[in-house]
């Protein structure tokens, strides 16, 4: 935790400086007759953020903040593993929605999540993974009249068949 706090503060300080730099792309001072420039607001807010990180670092050095006194790890190996597994699964889900449709991505994500992360039985996994996208399809496409991504053309026959139930 102690190391995590100072690393986090450092990253946030860098972020603050980057925000300040980006803000200067617009006028960040006072424009005579007009008022503050477009970059003034984010620039000074970022400056305050930077000052805050300095204070966080000072508190860390003085060991006055609770995390600075802690020896617990910020993220253990299990947490890190799960972060990548779950985060990666969601990223893949979003990415696949362009290719195999939102519903196809949902189907695969559920299999991945339930079977491989949740370690549920195949029967339960396949039941949920099949039913949820179908229910979602009819809910959004039929009831809500909201069209979600259908992916590439090869998915068309499947959706044509499903649309027969709607139209």
């Amino acid at each position, binding site marked *: 935790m102690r190391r995590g706090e100072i690393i986090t503060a450092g990253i946030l300080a860098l972020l603050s400086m980057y925000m300040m730099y980006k803000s200067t792309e617009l006028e960040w001072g006072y424009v005579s007759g007009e008022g503050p*420039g477009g970059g003034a607001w984010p620039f000074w807010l970022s400056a305050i*953020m930077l000052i805050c990180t300095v204070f966080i670092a000072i508190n860390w050095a003085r060991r006055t903040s609770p995390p600075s006194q802690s020896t617990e790890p910020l993220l253990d190996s299990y947490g890190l593993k799960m972060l990548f597994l779950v985060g990666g699964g969601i990223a893949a889900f979003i990415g696949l929605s362009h290719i195999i449709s939102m519903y196809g991505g*949902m189907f695969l994500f559920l299999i991945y999540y339930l079977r491989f992360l949740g370690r549920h039985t195949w029967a339960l996994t396949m039941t949920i993974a099949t039913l949820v996208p179908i229910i979602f399809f009819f809910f959004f496409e039929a009831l809500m009249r909201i069209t979600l991504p259908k992916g590439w053309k090869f998915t068309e026959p499947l959706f044509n068949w499903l649309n027969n139930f709607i139209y």
Partner: protein
Amino acid sequence: MYGGAISSITLGIPGASTAVATTFDGRPLAMQGRASLALVTAAVASFIGGTVSNIFFTAFAPPLASVALSFGPPEIFALMLLAFATFVGLGGDDIPKTIFSICIGLVLASVGYDEISGAPRLIFFDITGFLHGINFLVLAIGVYGIGEMLWTIDSTRGKITSTTAKFSVKGVVDDAKEGMRRGWRGTTIGSFIGFFVGILPAAGATPGSLMSYGVSKMLAKDSKEYGKGHPDGVAAPEAANNSASTGSMLPMLTLGIPGSPTTAILLGGMVIWGLTPGPRLFVDQSEFVWGLIGSFYVSNFFALIVNIAFIPVFIWMLAHAVHHPGADDLRVVGRWRLCSNPRHARRMAHADLRHRCFLPAQARLSSGTSRAGHRAWPDRRADIAPVAAVVVRRSDDLPEPADCRPDHGHRDHPDPAAASQVWLEQVPPYRRRPTGTAGLINTSPVSSRTGGLLRQAAFVFGCNQSGARRCVRTSIGPMSHL
């Protein structure tokens, strides 16, 4: 308005921004196995708040509308400033982190076109998607929804736990009695404050519920019990949000100014029917106005009946609430539904990863962290402030739709009743030592919740103000040419 309390109490997830304050005491009650008490108290308080508000509405409509109209931009700005100041004041002993969280939210909200000059601002890596700014919902779903899902997995280590609660008809009656006996102060305060905050243009029910909670706690003799499951803490916000929802109708009907996003949509509906909200409405369409007011009384009564009748269902939800991946699907789909923009879905995931990478240190440290590294009680200080600030800053966000609200999954302690005791026993010695004005209370999860509550106030003002504006634009604008 009662609907938002259900998930606040049963799952610890505010079902609506108006029910944020309900979470602070409703959820601890549920974790103590007293979900029925919390739900019944919320239902009865909502009914009383609504009824009081209806009476006020009936009696004082025209004069109160003129008072509300006197709140201009300086007054609204002062309210926002007050909200931010209270974040810092009550946010515990990590003031720099609190200020940082507020500021980063405000900075993120300034991404996109500068509203004054029209120039693009903070367009990171020249990605054109940033021209439209960072949508509140993207950030909220990423930070709240997926972040909570990851946290749940990390904290439970994959082991799903659930709490159970007993229910009986007699129990509901007893709970209603107890709820009113122990929650009358909160109900009274909430009913009055909610109404008067509700009539402020662009304020709405959320600030009313938060203020009522704060005032109720401030005036209570046993204020230290707040955050641990005090019925007053459930009654005050629930009475207030119901009262405020009626109050927000006042400026809409009398002046044509929507007091909340909901009333803005209602205003659009009135325009469709050829009704022109304003002072003349009471004269020209008196039948409609008084019929509408009469319907408030009737609907309020039936809402009480329905809400109490369905409490067994809510209890069942509590007992069977488990996190499941379908919620994640809904998050992504919901995001898509709002704007049909894949960028937003991706940004939501990025927001989550940023949150996961950058904020857990603050989130964990500001909460009750046991030796084992598990939070005995959830805390959202680090989550709420940036999201709140984004909402305050942005003026073109949609009001948060209830059906797209992020579902956080469930985080119950395996033995909820003993959770606080376990936490106290396991809390590291340094957290027990008073540091300055901050002793155990300031580092306790209860205190953190209170800090989170006031951070939500930021959420409040901005959400309603921007939501109202957007609703007027989206609902009346397209209709005006019809």
